C-alpha cells in the first residue's frame, strides 16, 4: 500500500488506537489489583510505556514480519477487533440500547468500518481529527466531578508491596492497547521527519496525562469496595453529574465514546489491510470484505456477561505477548539476522 504519514497523523493514529474502547473501563482492574497505589503504579507503568516507545523507535526497521508472523498478527488483530466490537455492543446494550438487537449494533459498526476501508487509506488516517474536540469535551465534563472527589482515597501508597505493584503493572497493560501498531505505521512516516526526542516525549506526556486523569478521578470518586462493582467507572462518573441541558450526561458521552471506538475499529481494519496487502494479492477488496464479514459474525458469540468478564480478566496476558514480547523477539531475531523492513 502506498501512503505516507505526517507526524501529527502518525501520533493521532496511535492515540486513537490506544485510547479508543478501553478508556472508559481500564481503570477498574487497575484499581482492584493495586488498591490505593493505583495512581502510582500507573505512573510506573507509563515510564515503562515510554521505554517501550523509545525501544520501538530505535529498532522499528527490524520489525520485519515473515509469512508466519504476518498471519499471526492478522489473526490476532481480527480476534482483538471482534472482542472490541463485542465489548462496544455489550456496553451499548447495558447503557443505552437494551432492546435493540445486538446484531444491528454490530452491523452498524462493521458497516462503517467496511466503508472506510474500501476507500483511500487517508480517509481513516484523517477521520481521527474529527474526534479531537469531542475527546477534549470528555475530559472537560469529567472535571464537573471535582467537588465530589475524596483526596484521601489516594493514600496510603504501599511502596513496598511488590505483589500489588506487579499486579497493577500487568493490569495497566490495557493502556498499552495496540502499541505494536507503532512498528507497523512507523515506516510510513515521511522520511525527513524526526520522531525521537521531543515529539515522542510530547506524545507520551499527552497520553499519560489523559489516562492519569481518568485513573486519579476514578480512585478519588469511588470507594475501593465500590469500584469492584463498576465496570465502566468513567461513564458512571459522568452519569452522576447533573447539568441543566441534558438529563443523562452519560448517554451523550456513550455516543462520543462509540464514535471514538468505531474509528479505533476502522484503524484495526486499516492495519489488517496494510499488513495483508504488503504482499501483492489478487483480490484485495474481497479480502477486506471477508475480514469484515468475520467481524460481523464473531462478536455475536462473545456478547454475554460471563464471556465479556472472562475476556476482560485475561486479555492483558494476551496483550503482554503481542504488544511487548513478540515484537521484541521479532526485532531481536531480525537484528541478529540483519533483516530490515524495506
Amino acid at each position, binding site marked *: 500500500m502506498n501512503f505516507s504519514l505526517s507526524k501529527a497523523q502518525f501520533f493521532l493514529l496511535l492515540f486513537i488506537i490506544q485510547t479508543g474502547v478501553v478508556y472508559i473501563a481500564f481503570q477498574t482492574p487497575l484499581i482492584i489489583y493495586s488498591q490505593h497505589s493505583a495512581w502510582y503504579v500507573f505512573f510506573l507503568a507509563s515510564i515503562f510505556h515510554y521505554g517501550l516507545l523509545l525501544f520501538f523507535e530505535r529498532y522499528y526497521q527490524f520489525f520485519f514480519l515473515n509469512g508466519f508472523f504476518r498471519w499471526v498478527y492478522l489473526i490476532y488483530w481480527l480476534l482483538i477487533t471482534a472482542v472490541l466490537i463485542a465489548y462496544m455492543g455489550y456496553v451499548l446494550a447495558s*447503557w*443505552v440500547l437494551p432492546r435493540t438487537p445486538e446484531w*444491528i449494533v454490530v452491523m452498524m459498526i462493521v458497516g462503517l468500518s467496511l466503508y472506510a476501508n474500501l476507500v483511500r487509506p487517508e480517509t481513516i488516517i484523517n477521520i481521527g481529527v474529527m474526534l479531537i474536540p469531542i475527546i477534549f469535551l470528555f475530559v472537560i465534563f469529567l472535571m464537573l466531578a471535582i467537588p465530589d472527589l*475524596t483526596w484521601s482515597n489516594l*493514600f496510603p501508597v504501599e511502596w513496598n508491596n511488590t505483589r500489588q505493584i506487579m499486579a497493577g503493572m500487568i493490569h495497566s497493560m490495557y493502556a498499552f492497547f495496540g502499541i505494536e501498531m507503532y512498528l507497523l505505521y512507523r515506516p510510513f512516516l515521511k522520511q525527513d521527519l524526526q520522531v525521537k526526542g521531543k515529539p515522542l516525549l510530547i506524545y507520551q506526556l499527552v497520553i499519560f496525562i489523559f489516562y492519569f486523569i481518568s485513573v486519579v478521578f476514578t480512585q478519588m470518586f469511588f*470507594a475501593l469496595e*465500590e469500584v469492584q462493582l463498576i465496570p465502566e467507572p468513567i461513564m458512571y462518573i459522568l452519569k452522576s453529574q447533573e447539568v441543566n441541558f441534558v*438529563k443523562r450526561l452519560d448517554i451523550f458521552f456513550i455516543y462520543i465514546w462509540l464514535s471514538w471506538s468505531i474509528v479505533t475499529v476502522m484503524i484495526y481494519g486499516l492495519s489488517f489491510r496494510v499488513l495483508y496487502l504488503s504482499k501483492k494479492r489478487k483480490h484485495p477488496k474481497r479480502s477486506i470484505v471477508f475480514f469484515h464479514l468475520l467481524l460481523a459474525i464473531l462478536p455475536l458469540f462473545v456478547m454475554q456477561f460471563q464471556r465479556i468478564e472472562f475476556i476482560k480478566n485475561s486479555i492483558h496476558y494476551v496483550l503482554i505477548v503481542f504488544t511487548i514480547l513478540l515484537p521484541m523477539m521479532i526485532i531481536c531475531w531480525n537484528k541478529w539476522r540483519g533483516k530490515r523492513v524495506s
Partner: protein
Amino acid sequence: MYRKGIMLLLSMLLLAGCWDERLYKNASVVTLVGVDGYIGAYKGYYAYPNTAAQQNEVIEADGISPRDVRNQANLKVEQTLDLSELSTILVSDQTVREPLYDILDIYFRDPQNPISIKIAVTEGDVKPFIELTKDLAGGAGGYYERFMESTEENTIFPKLDLQTVGSMLFEQTIDIALPYIQLSEDKKHAVAAGVALFSGQTFTGTILTPKQSLTMLLLMNQPSKQARMSYMWKHDGKSMPITADVIHIKRQWTVNEELKRIDMDYLIEVEIEEFAHDHLYKDPVFKEVQQLIQDHVQGEFEEVLRILQGQQSDTLGIGRYIRAYHPKMFQKDWPAIYASLQLVPSVQVKIIRTGVLR
C-alpha cells in the same frame, strides 16, 4: 452496488433506537418514591403528576423486593411507571434498620434511574409524607428536593445525593447521616428533624437534633451558605440572645498513634447577626460574647462526638483520614477502634464581623 449498500446501511442507522424509544406521553413519570417494610414484605409508594387534575397521584403496592413492588404498582396504573425523572426517595426509619443498599441496588443498577437525587429517612411510615404532596400543583419529588436543598443551605442536612450515599455505604471508613424528617403538627408539612445516624449500612436508631446536626457539619468542616448558632447572653441580670453565623472554619487534627488520641483543633470565624445589646466595639463586651460562643460550641462539639462514638457512627470520616495518613493505626474492625479513640476537640471562636452595626 455500493449505492445499494450505503442505502441499506443508512436505513439500518434509522432503525437503531426504535426498539429503545421511550416517550413521556406513554409513561407515568414518577418524581417521588417511598419505601416501607423489609426484604420479603416491602410496601412502595409512587407519586406522579396528573396534569389534567393539577395534582399528584399516589400508587401503593406490595412486593418481595423494591423491583417487585414496582412491577406490582405497574398493574395498577394506566401507563407504566417511569422513574427517569425521580428526584427524591423517602425511606421509613424502620426500613433502614436493615441494610440500606438492599433497597438502593435497583437505582444503581438500572442506567435509566438518576443517581443525583435526594434520599431521606421519615419518622414512622412513609405514607403520610407521600400523601401530603397529593394536592401540590408541582412535582411531589420536587417539593422534597427543594425542602432538603434549602435545609442543606442552612447547614442542617449534609449535602448528599444517592451516588455519594452509595459510595459511603461501601466504605468502612466513613458512615452516612441521612436527613430525618417529621410531619408538622397539622400533618400538612414536612419538618427537618435532624439527621439519622448510620453505622455501616444500618440506621443506629439515634437522631441528631437540628442543632446537633449543625454541630456535626461544623466538625466535618462543611458549613453551607448559612450556619447560624443562637445562645442566650446573661449580663447584669438580663438575658439577651446572640446569633452568630459561621464564615470560615480551619480544622487541624493531630494524631497520636500510640495513645490512640486525636486532638481536633478548630478555629471558627463568625459574624454576629443578632445582638440587641450592641456595643460590640467595647472590648470587654466583645471578649465576653466571643468567649460565650466559644464555650457553647466547645460543649456542643464534645457532646456530638460522644454521641457519634457511642453509636459507632463515623460520619466525620475519621477512618478515611487515619487510613490515608496513619495506615498503621487503621485496622479492619474500624468501627470498634473508632469507638475507643480519644477524641479531644479544642475550639477557638473569633468574631470577625459584626454586620453593619458595631
